[in-house]
């Protein structure tokens, strides 16, 4: 069975086996992007499942080798196009590590605020799309997007663009936050818990959701650790690993927050861990907004390079920096050879690594469940294919 079949082309007379190979094709019923799964079915049950990716490969890493470091920053926005600020943060951290730059305090606080706002918008959108896969006909999606719109409007005011923000620079941020913007962020943060409560009333104890999601797609902690899974997927299986706590990058060690862990590792746990993480993000945002210091927003060493990025030459060496993006561990590995263009630039994308475990989670489940398991892994094709 080497040929792959489209669902509608199957000729009844020609099939001699009881195993059926089916293409859950690049055009998806659900909205995760161009992604293909080759599934082999025995009746209803999945016997093997291979993810096929690469439909959105855009040569991101190769492009970065031909342009200056700062010119790659807009391209990192488009990696994980839902969370552009996290990608910017990862890249900025890695180049700052390479060049030995110090970031002023106010800029660090602004970065943390942006990263946590990004976590909020990602998690509600993911929950919305998970419910879309379950068949709830867009209602949770639209409620989630209503809240997302408010945060995207803030991003537009600060950085100029809703999704492709290009806001962080090496050594700081591009533009300062006025007190009016801080008030608006505070308004969003105070209104969000009420929305989350309403969202949970709609979803968390819903019997149909529980029936569909509990004990489906269980991932054991040992398998997760062995397969280098990170992010909410890992924490839902009960492993305590959050890079904000482990590495303590930026000013995260100054904030009090907890890391929610799930008991079982099924789809329902992944959904609920994301809701709990959103509540923790709200705590971080609250603390950051209350204690943000006044000051500068750009490191002194980098100010001359703002007008002429093509002259920025970090010293020879390599650096790897990672952030806890909403999907997992996002890492940037940069090697410099003293010229304005990087010698090698690699992105460790969490969605790509998390997809390797898809087959193990789906074995023994029905086909209808494969779609929601994929929805709970939370992939974004821009990251998977780069």
């Amino acid at each position, binding site marked *: 069975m080497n040929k792959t079949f489209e669902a509608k082309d199957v000729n009844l007379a020609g099939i001699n086996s009881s195993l059926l190979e089916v293409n859950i094709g690049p055009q998806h019923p659900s909205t995760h992007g161009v992604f293909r799964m080759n599934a082999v079915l025995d009746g209803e049950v999945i016997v093997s499942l291979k993810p096929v990716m690469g439909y959105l490969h855009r040569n991101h890493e190769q492009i970065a080798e031909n*342009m*200056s470091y*700062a*010119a*790659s*920053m*807009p*391209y990192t926005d488009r990696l994980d196009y839902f969370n552009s600020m996290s990608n910017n943060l990862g890249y900025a951290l890695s180049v700052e590590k390479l060049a030995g730059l110090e970031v002023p305090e106010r800029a660090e606080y602004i970065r943390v605020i942006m990263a946590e706002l990004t976590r909020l918008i990602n998690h509600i959108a993911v929950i919305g799309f998970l419910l879309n896969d379950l068949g709830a006909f867009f*209602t949770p999606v639209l*409620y989630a997007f*209503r809240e997302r*719109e408010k945060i995207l*409007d803030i991003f*537009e*005011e*600060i*950085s*100029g*663009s809703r999704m*492709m923000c*290009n806001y962080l620079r090496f050594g700081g941020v591009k*533009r300062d936050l006025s007190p009016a913007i801080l008030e608006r962020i505070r308004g969003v943060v105070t209104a969000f818990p009420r929305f989350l409560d*309403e969202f949970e*009333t*709609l*979803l*968390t*104890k*819903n*019997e*149909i*959701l*529980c029936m569909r999601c509990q004990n489906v797609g269980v991932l054991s902690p040992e398998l997760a650790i062995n397969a280098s899974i990170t992010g909410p997927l890992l924490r839902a299986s009960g492993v305590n690993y959050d890079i904000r706590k482990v590495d303590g990058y930026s000013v995260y060690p100054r904030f009090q927050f907890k890391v929610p862990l799930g008991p079982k590792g099924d789809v329902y746990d992944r959904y609920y861990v994301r809701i709990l993480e959103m509540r923790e993000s709200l705590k971080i945002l609250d603390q950051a907004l209350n204690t943000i210091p006044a000051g500068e927003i750009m490191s002194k060493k980098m100010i001359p390079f*703002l*007008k*002429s*990025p*093509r002259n920025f030459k970090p010293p020879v060496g390599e650096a790897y920096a990672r952030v806890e993006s909403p999907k997992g561990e996002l890492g940037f590995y940069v090697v410099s050879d003293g010229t304005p263009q990087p010698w090698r630039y690699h992105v460790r994308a969490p969605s790509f690594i998390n997809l390797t475990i898809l087959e193990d989670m789906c074995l023994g489940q029905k086909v209808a469940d494969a779609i929601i398991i994929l929805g709970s892994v939370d992939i974004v094709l821009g990251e998977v294919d780069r």
Partner: protein
Amino acid sequence: MMYFGEGVVKGMMVTLKAFVASYFKGPEDGGLFTVEYPEQRLPEKENFRNFPFLIYDNTPDNLRCVACDICAKECPPKCIYIVREFDKDNKPLKRPAVFNIDHTVCMNCGICEEACPFDAIYMDHNFEIASAERNENLLFRKDKLLKSNEYFHKIRPTDATAIDERRAAAEAKKKAAEAAAAQKAAAAQAAPKPAAPGTTTPPAAEPPKTV
């Protein structure tokens, strides 16, 4: 859970509340969130960053761009194409003859705005440029890109006023430096000829030391 189906019923109450609220309440309280474009529009944000445009000061001939090619070099997808203008004797002028931006390539990153040393190119708010075919209408040449400083003030007032102040301060400083240099030159010239009648510059007793 009190009875089987309680979660479902509570969830349905949430939807019913949204249904009723959509008739009476606005976007902030969980009501109708739709803005019927193009009859209604959301207010424009000042920092909104869309395609670039070139600034001129009073007349389109007075454009600030000097065709230094820095924005074309910095542009990540290389969507800017500049050709410097030459006069009749083939001497280079400080103006572009050709300045094309390909809007199908431009990714609205704003790096050209940051890199320009002459405050000549800024990001516009114009996003309604959809057209039926690609090559004629979406390659913006110099005439379509030139917009006045008043337009810039209209769309981005705080940035425009800050830039104008900075340029005015730089102008003033340059003028002051020039005036001081001219004064120094005139004083140096006037020093060997003391008490020349009719000169308006005060005679300097000793050569000035610092400027």
